[in-house]
């Protein structure tokens, strides 16, 4: 796809071997789900590129009959998001359902009309999470995550909301790599080319809200995180001090979203400190 190729030409170091990455992710995804005792998976489908890529990976890993996509619009969600989600559902042929979250969100905020858009947005993200986890029990299907590496690092997500899942196949892919893989796996073009948005209020876009483009921040993150370059070398690569500062502050400030709750140590074997086991214990 032209747009994706143009992005990757500006950051060739982000380019992935698509076939290999797909094989790695789908193999690991099916093993992690199956050994946890599940055959089916469920995920929220917003109409955006991240959840679409998760969906396509799931279909490849489990077959369309074992994947459940859930659309959970709020009354202000854009019409096109809902349609784009439908395009992905139609294209993959997965089972889907749509649950309008307007009644419960409006019922809650009726008593707090002064609530900010941020609070409302977070509440919606967590509402969607509780629906997915409820349907997970209903359908006996594991919840698959849709957060990419860029937003995890920036903390651009709602704790216990859209960041919650059992297994996240996208968490080690930068947004630019999500775009590359989405194009490779045939995600409908309009989903790939439209400006990314949390769609929490009208005309919201990620890049508008963050104040930089995904390509720029992916390039910076690559040099900061993967290459561990010191600030002098980042400057030599023409990243501005303000941009570096903004991104590194976000990464540090949002570390709390990337960890389990802190436990205050009393015993000699504290969960997560000196009681250390993988989740795949015995699996």
């Amino acid at each position, binding site marked *: 796809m032209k747009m994706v190729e143009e992005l990757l030409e500006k950051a060739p170091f982000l380019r992935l*071997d698509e076939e290999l990455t797909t094989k790695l992710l789908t193999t690991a995804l099916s093993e992690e789900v199956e*050994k946890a005792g599940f055959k089916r998976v469920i995920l929220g489908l917003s109409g955006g590129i991240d959840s679409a890529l998760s969906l396509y990976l799931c279909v490849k890993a489990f077959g369309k009959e074992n994947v459940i996509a859930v659309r959970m619009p709020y009354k202000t969600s854009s019409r096109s998001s809902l349609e784009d989600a439908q395009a992905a559902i139609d294209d993959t042929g997965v089972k889907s359902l749509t649950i309008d979250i307007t009644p419960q969100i409006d019922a809650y905020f009726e008593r707090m009309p002064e609530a900010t858009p941020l609070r409302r947005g977070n509440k919606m993200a967590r509402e969607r999470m509780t629906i997915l986890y409820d349907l997970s029990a209903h359908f006996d299907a594991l919840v698959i995550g849709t957060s990419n590496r860029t937003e995890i690092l920036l903390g651009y997500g709602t704790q216990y909301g859209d960041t919650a899942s059992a297994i996240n196949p996208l968490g080690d892919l930068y947004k630019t790599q999500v775009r590359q893989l989405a194009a490779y796996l045939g995600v409908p073009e309009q989903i790939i080319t439209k400006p990314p948005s949390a769609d929490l209020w009208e005309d919201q876009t990620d890049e508008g809200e963050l104040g930089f483009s995904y390509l720029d921040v992916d390039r910076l993150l690559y040099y900061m995180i993967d290459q561990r370059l010191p600030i002098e070398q980042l400057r030599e690569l023409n990243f501005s001090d303000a941009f570096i500062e903004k991104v590194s502050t976000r990464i540090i400030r949002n570390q709390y979203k990337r960890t389990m709750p802190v436990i205050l140590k009393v015993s000699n074997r504290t969960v997560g400190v000196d009681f250390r086991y993988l989740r795949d*214990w015995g699996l």
Partner: protein
Amino acid sequence: MRVAIAQIRPRLGRVDLNLELHQEWIRRAQEEQVDLLVFPELSLTGYNLLDLTYEVAKNTFCPEIQTLISMADGLDLVFGFVEDSPEHILYNSAAYVSSQNLHYLHRKVYLPTYGMFDEARYFGAGKTIRSFPTRFGQVGILICEDIWHSSTAYLLAQDGAQVMIVLSNSPGRGVSSKGLGTQETWYSILKNQALIHGSYILFANRVGTEDGVTFFGGSAVVDPFGETEKQASLFEEELLIVDIDLEKVKKARFQMPMLRDENLDLTIRELERIQRKRHGEGNWL
């Protein structure tokens, strides 16, 4: 000589189930008239054990290890486990079993403790690197990180090893447009060491995923000229069977007599000088 590599997917901390897995793959290898069957590192336990390390540790007299020893009848067997030594030091060990005897035990010397690895938190480091005679010829065992230290393959070669067995649990990572970074690096080390020492290298790497970390497989047999004779698929279980020709070791060493010409005395002398220098002794120009 027919060798086979069991590119398996062990279950984390389930020695009981992994023992069954070993038995099943041994029977498969026996049906294929395999002479030597190699399992990956920690094949009886899985890799990232953390606190499970203490719980899955076994001494060599335990029923599980004895069961495998008793199965090595007509076929020699190499497998990995957490060894609970008589001193109760835990080692990341590999056993070579032949004619229903524990023939040789290698304890991993170099325990990666950086980046995603934390082995030295749980394991003691082995203290020997030696080759040993087998019914096929002289063999040496290394475990994963061991072979990233060039001294280890060097020592085995000097000690006579014609075949080096490398048990591994290497996670696939560093994906780029050029493929899988870890796989590329591994193959370049294996080919280089096989060529330089004129030895066969049998690389047994596991597959499967532990908490999102996927071991890449790609087990391989590299000949003494540094050519890959056969390699297993990525990420999938596979019994990789290869007929190897130990005459190739002779041919390679006749053609490229680096082992004959190696100046062991010089190496030892210089190493001792370096050792004194590091201890701050004497004149070391």
